């Protein structure tokens, strides 16, 4: 490969919100090989999780990633609860669903905006983010903070959604839905957008499974696998069917996320509709002794926490496997053969979250 040109893509690049470097070898305009160089955001959270008290860890794991923070907290809490054999009150389960789905809506709208910007559709980026602010307002109203909402705690949730707030959410979401619908129609129906995304970065369902891909990357290849089907929190009691698209290209992955926004809105409304009365959090004594693994569906895919307790207030081991970590091999397998100008869009199509990946 003596005539190959090596191009570093990142760590500071306008389409990447975070520092990751892809070392790309090119022949003319075609990508021959891509390798990631990580480590710019590695902090050492798995070790800090052993040094902290297991209850303090809830606040630490929320800061593994700011975009899907509450889902990290949920996964950690589920793992500790299952290690301690705690029963979570029904109301807490439903409230968790409300917050997790609001979080998913904001994360997917963020992705759709960034993707629009990556192929030069700046006004659509602004529109998606303008609508996203209304979801952020709902999060701020119910949880008191916009991004890191800190609602989960071991045994349940820390805050309640009262009737007034529930009414506001019920009134606001259909309006947001209408606006998102208008934009999604524009995004998915547009000829230029199709030219930029359809057939780019194709990965077949079997290849996606073999490479361990998860979340919208896997569902965009036609594989119906979503951890919400396993029915943690209150998902088993809500009607849930995963969204899939068959083609496995950037367009399919985007469409999965776009339709998941609507699905999440339905889930929020259904959870508020069926919100049972009761306690917010189970009281508990004792410390985790024993190991547990929890798998939940974060916006980017399956998120796994494994905790190993030893009967003291510190954990023996806290293991985090995040969705982007599983999607990187799939990304590396689709980049060879792409044109260099498509690399930003294809890279963004797995919705990479580097601060998750490196912890």
């Amino acid at each position, binding site marked *: 490969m003596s005539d190959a040109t090596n191009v570093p893509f990142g760590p500071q690049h306008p389409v990447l919100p975070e520092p990751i470097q892809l070392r790309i070898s090119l022949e003319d305009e075609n990508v021959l090989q891509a390798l990631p160089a990580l480590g710019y955001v590695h902090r050492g959270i798995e070790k800090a999780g052993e040094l902290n008290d297991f209850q303090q860890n809830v606040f630490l794991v929320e800061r593994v990633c700011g975009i899907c923070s509450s889902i990290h907290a949920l996964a950690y809490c589920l793992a500790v609860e299952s290690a301690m054999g705690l029963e979570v009150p029904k109301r807490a389960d439903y409230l968790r669903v409300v917050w997790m789905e609001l979080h998913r809506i904001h994360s997917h709208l963020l992705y759709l905006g960034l993707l629009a910007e990556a192929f030069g559709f700046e006004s659509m980026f602004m529109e998606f983010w303008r609508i996203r602010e209304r979801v952020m307002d709902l999060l701020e109203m119910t949880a008191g903070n916009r991004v890191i909402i800190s609602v989960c705690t071991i045994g349940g949730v820390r805050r309640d959604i009262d009737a007034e707030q529930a009414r506001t959410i019920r009134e606001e979401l259909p309006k947001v839905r209408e606006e998102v619908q208008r934009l999604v129609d524009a995004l998915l129906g547009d000829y230029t957008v199709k030219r930029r995304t359809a057939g780019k970065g194709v990965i077949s369902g079997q290849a996606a499974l*073999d490479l361990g891909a998860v979340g919208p990357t896997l569902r965009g290849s036609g594989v119906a696998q979503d951890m919400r089907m396993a029915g943690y929190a209150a998902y088993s009691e809500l009607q849930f069917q995963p969204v899939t698209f068959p083609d496995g290209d950037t367009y399919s992955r985007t469409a999965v996320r776009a339709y998941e926004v609507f699905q999440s809105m339905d889930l929020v409304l259904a959870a508020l509709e069926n919100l049972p009365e009761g306690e917010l959090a189970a009281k508990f004594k004792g410390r985790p002794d024993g190991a547990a693994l929890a798998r939940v569906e974060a916006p980017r895919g399956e998120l*796994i926490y494994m905790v190993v307790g030893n009967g003291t207030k510190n954990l023996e081991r806290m293991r985090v496997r995040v969705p982007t970590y599983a999607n990187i091999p799939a990304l590396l397998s689709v980049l060879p053969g792409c044109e260099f100008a498509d690399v930003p869009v294809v890279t963004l199509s797995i919705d990479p979250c580097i601060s998750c990946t490196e912890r």
Partner: protein
Amino acid sequence: MSELAAVQGIERIEDAPLEGLLEAVRAYRDRRARFITATCLDRGERFEILYLFDEGLKTVAVRTFLPKGQRLPSITGVYLCGFLVENELQDLFGIEVDGLDIDYRGKFLVTNTFETPPLLKQTTCELRPTKEEPS
């Protein structure tokens, strides 16, 4: 020297000796299980390593024990996507992996900065005396 008895959320844990590890992993590959990740625990004299797989939303695991100082065979020949986690094992636990497909040689997440690998027990993460700026 303790080991995990059972893990809530993992359907079954299958023990494999170090030399039989690749066969055990290949059996999952043949059944089309999806590789999730590997998890390592520092158990004093040895490492306890769990390879997690997904079989229809159920989690199953292959476990092996690696005495400290020995080399771990790489599973990248069976599951290519294992290269990320094996590089991480090299970095954070100081385990040397044999036959790694894409090898960052211990410079994947951290750049050789610590006296002892950071995720081992009883380490204070002392910095190595710096000679020069790492390249």
